[in-house]
């Protein structure tokens, strides 16, 4: 008798909990305010702990790396010395080129395309659980002046965009995420294109690039920047370099792959550009 009773209770409990879950799902879709309030509350507790774990992990990694990398460092030093010589030579040539460039710019009255954006440094402290997507959490948020849609860069290349902001943390969606689109522009020819993240390319570290006009002069090795027509991205941020272009079967466009400028495998620190793209419309 007792066993039967227990069984019924378990089934009932299953229904009740199912109801709660479905209600939560409903709330997530219908009342985004409630959802983000819950998430903010959770982040308030979770973020400090994640930050602590991250700091501890970094400390350990530093300690172990110090021993392991001694040999590598010596070898690298040798190589770098050589490199310095090469670069010094190259630099002197480039300085000459720069003077020439400045002169020509003045001649053409071209403005500087890349204004210095105000940025905030952030540490990556957590990643979404599960292996299908690659959004991650950073350790600064609303209190540090972060807002949704701010661009995130690292090492000079585009990493992604802030999607959600909590008190002291924020969620960044990375450009390598599947189904993620950025409008791009070829640096040399100004041709427009679309850059897509694709899970099936993540292992090879590539992005997909599509919608390049067939007649355009984009070629392998060209730099792709964020375009001026993008609604969320500031123009002129480096996304990556083109590899492997092929003509599409529709005979109108070309597509290929892109090597991102950022090393997504070892992403630890990022910069958030604290300026939103001004699209002229009302917010």
């Amino acid at each position, binding site marked *: 008798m007792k066993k039967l009773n227990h069984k019924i209770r378990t089934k009932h409990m299953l229904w009740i909990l199912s109801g709660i*879950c479905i*209600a939560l799902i409903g709330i997530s879709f219908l009342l985004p305010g409630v959802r983000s309030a819950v998430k903010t509350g959770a982040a308030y507790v979770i973020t400090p702990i994640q930050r602590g774990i991250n700091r501890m992990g970094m400390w350990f990694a530093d300690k172990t790396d110090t021993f392991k990398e001694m040999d590598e460092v010596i070898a690298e030093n040798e190589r770098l010395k050589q490199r310095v010589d090469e670069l010094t030579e190259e630099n002197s040539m480039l300085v000459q080129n720069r003077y020439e460039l400045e002169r020509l710019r003045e001649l053409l009255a071209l403005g500087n395309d890349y204004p210095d954006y105000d940025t905030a440094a952030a540490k990556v402290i957590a990643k979404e659980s599960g*292996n299908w997507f690659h959004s991650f959490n950073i350790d600064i948020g609303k209190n540090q002046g972060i807002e949704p849609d701010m661009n995130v860069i690292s090492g000079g290349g585009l990493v992604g965009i802030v999607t959600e902001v909590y008190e002291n943390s924020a969620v960044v969606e990375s450009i390598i995420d599947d189904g993620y689109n950025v409008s791009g522009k070829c640096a040399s020819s100004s041709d427009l294109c679309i850059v897509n993240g694709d899970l099936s390319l993540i292992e090879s570290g590539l992005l997909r690039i599509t919608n390049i006009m067939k007649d355009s002069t984009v070629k392998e090795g060209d730099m792709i920047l964020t375009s001026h027509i993008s609604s969320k991205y500031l123009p002129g941020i480096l996304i990556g370099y083109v590899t492997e272009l092929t003509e599409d079967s529709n005979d109108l466009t070309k597509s290929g792959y892109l090597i991102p400028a950022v090393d997504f495998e070892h992403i630890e620190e990022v910069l958030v550009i604290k300026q939103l793209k001004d699209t002229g419309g009302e917010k």
Partner: protein
Amino acid sequence: MFLRSVLRKIIVIGIAILAAFIQTAVFPLFSFQIPYPNLMILLTSVFGFIAGKREGMYTGFICGLCADLFGGTVLGFSALLFMYLGYMNGMIRRFIYEEDIIFPIILVAATDFAYNFIYFVLNFMLRNRLQFGYYFIHTVLPEIIFTAVLVLFSYKQFLKLHKRLLRYEEGSET
């Protein structure tokens, strides 16, 4: 008396939260891109298998809720999915000896596969990304293997914990 009966739930909640932190903050320290084991699935499946439908259901619900709160966009979705996975794992318990190590591994692998398959259907297939074979080999399979290896090391500990708790609870009833 009451405290004794909720002890199990507190322990399960504690383990789930710990696992969620490991999943989101510790694993990414090693690498950002390679697949990680799925601790939430491991907990849900193992607890369901060794403690039955009821505990599997609760554990799944708690693990899912953690997964929702630590990331993800829709609150309650993982909770619902994990809850049913835990419940189903609990249903299988009746037929198998729990001391055997092979079966839990197969069960966790199957649960992880089921979870990832549902995730694939809802998040990828509906966007016309159909090459499941590719995703299976590069994303799902590594996750399953990592998770299964973890089961191999942790299953005995979970079983011991479960038995100790059971003794403790029975002690409180007499």
